[in-house]
């Protein structure tokens, strides 16, 4: 799984002292603060080194390894979902084609949607945040690394269970939002909807755990001097996303559990005959659903805001305006959910309120786009692949955003809701708004993560083919939607006249596949066959992550930096440059105050343990057991309770070691 991470460049693990406490008792207390190559740096390398063997690999809680695992696993799931997308396009290329039966096709589009939204988009953005944010704010690890490790294992087990279910013909078959009567007790036949509800519980738990981890890291572990105004824009985007996740994801976990209670315990939340209501599920889901798509969009805005200054060779124009736009978009996204339900019989006045809100949210994004264009206009440009993808982002996102405004109007939505116009809009906004910036970020931070730069020529081929493929695949769908082609149909009659444009779209899909193939070749060629190593700052960027080696040492900074400007590497050297005095023999970092980042306390990061993996495994046992038997829902709670108890039980060795470095507040 961690093929990219396990690189030849990783230092050979040296034999550790048999018992740390015995060795530590007489060892002099070494403090950090000197540069690389000093005795403290060597001691830090030993302290932050991972345990050997499989147990060691399973108990890694370093934010770089976790971030990498999230991204690699997310791209693995995205590959599978992409194949499903290709299959569907192939099925719809011709009229009356019975290549795929209705049941398998329903599972395909449900799995495509569920995987892309829950198993690819959010985890990959959180993976990038986990990797980049600590480096960008100048700290050694995230605040709760074990919780993020447990979140990764939950994510992996959830994804494997969903694809295991799909492999045994039990994949969800009622769309990626599983509207209730169809996924309810009567029409949701077999265990299919149960597995979907369980996956939602998994992926939301993962999202929430990582969100709390990132929020606490950003607020409390910034380098001294990095006040809120000095924080880089990508860190602002991650903060806004994480806070939104904390307020939105509990709702869909609650909703999925209520549907599961309806199916397993016979409650009547959504049974109209016994007082329930089918629309209640739509309210619950979409109140989370719309912020969900902004969890994917706002980190991508963060990527663009991090990349443009580097390739325009100047600070971002309107930094504060972009921060305010990010925060406003975060708030407004909670007020839009009914624009997914315009075709229901909700009162008209209420719906028009949501039209106004849907139009209003376009303004902060427009402001950001204008600020970016202004930065490009005022800068000196370096036309490299990451910047190309950002330009592709402008084009594709603008079309997606404008069709979004069209969809926001109640009357027009009555014509285009649940048609291929919506399919075109969502792909333009998601591919334009998230996948293009994601590729830009991948090309941008690849040298930092792996120490080698991705090929430029292949990169440009990948960009142009992807750009043409996306537009060729999804633009015709706008027209098909207006010609009445509904969403989620596995076939259509020849008399409908939808065949020619569907064929064009299928051709576009092939071009997409070719571009993804080129990207894969570029990836493999760089990781396994490229020899020359990238420097610490190949793009000449300004933020902190470029001040450490590529790939960064396990402890990130041998001496934590002190920051005095938004682009520390570009600013003239300040008088105070780094922090000294933290322990080099236990994993220690520095917490700082929330607003002005004044040094507050020293903080001992938790040592790597196996318990997060065991806890995630026990939660898996509980959830799978609860799908098959109702008592399993209750007795299944015992394994997780035990796992979390053992996780919390203090480790005597570490307690003794940390006691040596303890100072009263």
């Amino acid at each position, binding site marked *: 799984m961690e093929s990219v991470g396990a690189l030849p460049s990783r230092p050979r693990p040296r034999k550790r002292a048999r018992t740390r406490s015995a060795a530590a008792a007489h060892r002099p207390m070494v403090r950090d603060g000197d540069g690389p190559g000093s005795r403290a740096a060597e001691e830090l390398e030993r302290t932050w080194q991972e345990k050997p063997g499989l147990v060691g690999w399973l108990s890694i809680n370093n934010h770089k390894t976790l971030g990498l695992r999230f991204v690699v696993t997310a791209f693995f799931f995205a590959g599978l979902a992409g194949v499903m997308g290709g299959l569907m396009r192939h099925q719809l290329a011709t009229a009356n084609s019975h290549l795929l039966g209705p*049941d398998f096709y329903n599972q395909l589009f449900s799995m495509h949607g569920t995987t892309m939204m829950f198993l690819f988009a959010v985890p990959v953005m959180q993976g990038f945040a986990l990797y980049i944010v600590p480096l960008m704010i100048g700290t050694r690890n995230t605040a709760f690394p074990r919780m993020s490790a447990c979140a990764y294992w939950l994510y992996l087990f959830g994804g494997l269970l969903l694809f295991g*279910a799909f*492999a*045994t*013909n*039990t994949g969800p078959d009622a769309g990626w939002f599983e509207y209730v*009567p169809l996924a*309810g*007790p*009567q*029409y*949701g*036949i*077999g*265990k*299919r909807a149960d597995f979907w509800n369980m996956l939602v519980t998994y992926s939301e738990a993962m999202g929430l755990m990582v969100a709390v981890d990132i929020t606490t890291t950003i607020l409390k572990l910034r380098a001294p001097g990095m006040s809120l105004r000095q924080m880089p824009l990508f860190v602002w985007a991650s903060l806004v996303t994480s806070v939104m996740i904390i307020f939105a994801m509990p709702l869909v976990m609650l909703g999925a559990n209520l549907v599961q209670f309806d*199916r397993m315990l*016979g409650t*009547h939340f*959504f*049974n*109209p*005959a*016994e007082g329930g209501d089918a629309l209640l599920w739509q309210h619950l889901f979409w109140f989370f659903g719309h912020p969900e798509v902004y969890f994917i969009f706002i980190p991508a805005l963060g990527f663009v805001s991090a990349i443009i200054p580097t390739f325009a060779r100047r600070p971002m124009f309107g930094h504060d305006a972009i921060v305010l736009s990010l925060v406003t978009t975060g708030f407004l996204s909670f007020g839009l959910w009914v624009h997914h339900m315009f075709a229901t019989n909700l009162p008209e006045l209420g719906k028009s309120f949501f039209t106004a809100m849907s139009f209003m949210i376009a303004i902060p994004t427009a402001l950001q786009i204008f600020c970016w264009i202004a930065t490009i206009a005022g800068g000196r440009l370096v036309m490299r692949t990451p910047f190309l993808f950002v330009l592709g982002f402008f084009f594709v996102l603008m079309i997606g955003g404008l069709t979004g405004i069209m969809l926001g109007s109640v009357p027009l939505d009555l014509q285009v809701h649940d048609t291929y116009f919506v399919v075109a809009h969502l792909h333009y906004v998601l591919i334009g708004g998230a996948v293009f910036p994601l590729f830009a970020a991948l090309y941008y931070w690849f040298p930092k993560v792996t120490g080698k730069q991705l090929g430029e020529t292949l990169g440009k081929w990948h960009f142009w083919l992807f750009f043409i493929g996306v537009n060729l695949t999804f633009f015709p769908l706008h027209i098909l939607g207006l010609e009445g082609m509904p969403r989620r149909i596995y076939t259509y009659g020849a008399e409908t006249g939808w065949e020619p444009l569907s064929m064009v779209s299928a051709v576009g899909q092939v071009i997409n596949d070719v571009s993804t193939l080129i990207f894969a070749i570029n990836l493999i060629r760089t990781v396994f066959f490229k020899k020359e190593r990238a420097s610490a700052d190949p793009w000449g960027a300004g933020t902190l992550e470029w001040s450490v080696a590529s790939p960064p040492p396990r402890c990130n900074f041998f001496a934590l930096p002190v920051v005095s400007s938004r682009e520390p590497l570009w600013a003239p050297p300040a008088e105070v440059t780094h922090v000294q005095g933290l322990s080099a023999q236990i994993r220690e970092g520095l917490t700082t105050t929330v607003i002005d980042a004044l040094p507050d306390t020293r903080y001992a990061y938790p040592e790597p343990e196996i318990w997060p993996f065991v806890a995630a495994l026990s939660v898996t046992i509980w959830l799978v057991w609860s799908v*098959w038997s*109702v008592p399993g829902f209750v007795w299944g709670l015992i394994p997780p309770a035990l796992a979390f108890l053992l996780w919390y039980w203090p480790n005597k060795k570490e307690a003794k070691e940390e006691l040596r470095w303890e100072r009263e507040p």
Partner: protein
Amino acid sequence: MSSRFLELERARLLAVVAVVAAATGACQRETRDFLPPKPGAVVAGAASAAASQAEIANAAAMVGRYEHNAYGTSAGKRLWTWYNCSGCHGAGGGGGSGPALIDDVWIYGGDAGTVYQTIAYGRPNGMPAFGSRIPKDQIWQLAAYVRSMAGLASADAAPNRDDAFLTRTPESFLDPQKPETVKPSAAGGRPQ
């Protein structure tokens, strides 16, 4: 060293067997084969109960297959409401002018072949012969559903509650009834 290796090997073997068992179990429960194996035959008129044993044996196999198939039993439940079986057997199969179907008392026996025969050829004292009116495939599904009403079918394929007024505990909530505890009624075949 070798014993540990064997133990590892056995653990891996067990895991594979468990996965395959889960897979086949899930496959059988979740298949939606809309085209039945052989198009349902309209059983000729009021053929006497002495229909060929082969046909009954085949029916038992088909009912057994549908009992483990979620789509089959839920189609059976839909047909139960469509063909108004509750008119005589009571809203949740609790009994009315016809005998109750959710208890463990079976006048003519609860095994698959007998239930199929009851529906296809009818019974004295009021059960009409539906053979000529309901295609065979639907009779198999109905028989599978009737057996799941009494808990004789596997619980994880049994249908869940309807989005309607709750008349009984849903079929998938019943703890399975042992077939051998199926008691024939005391009197000579008269419905209680």
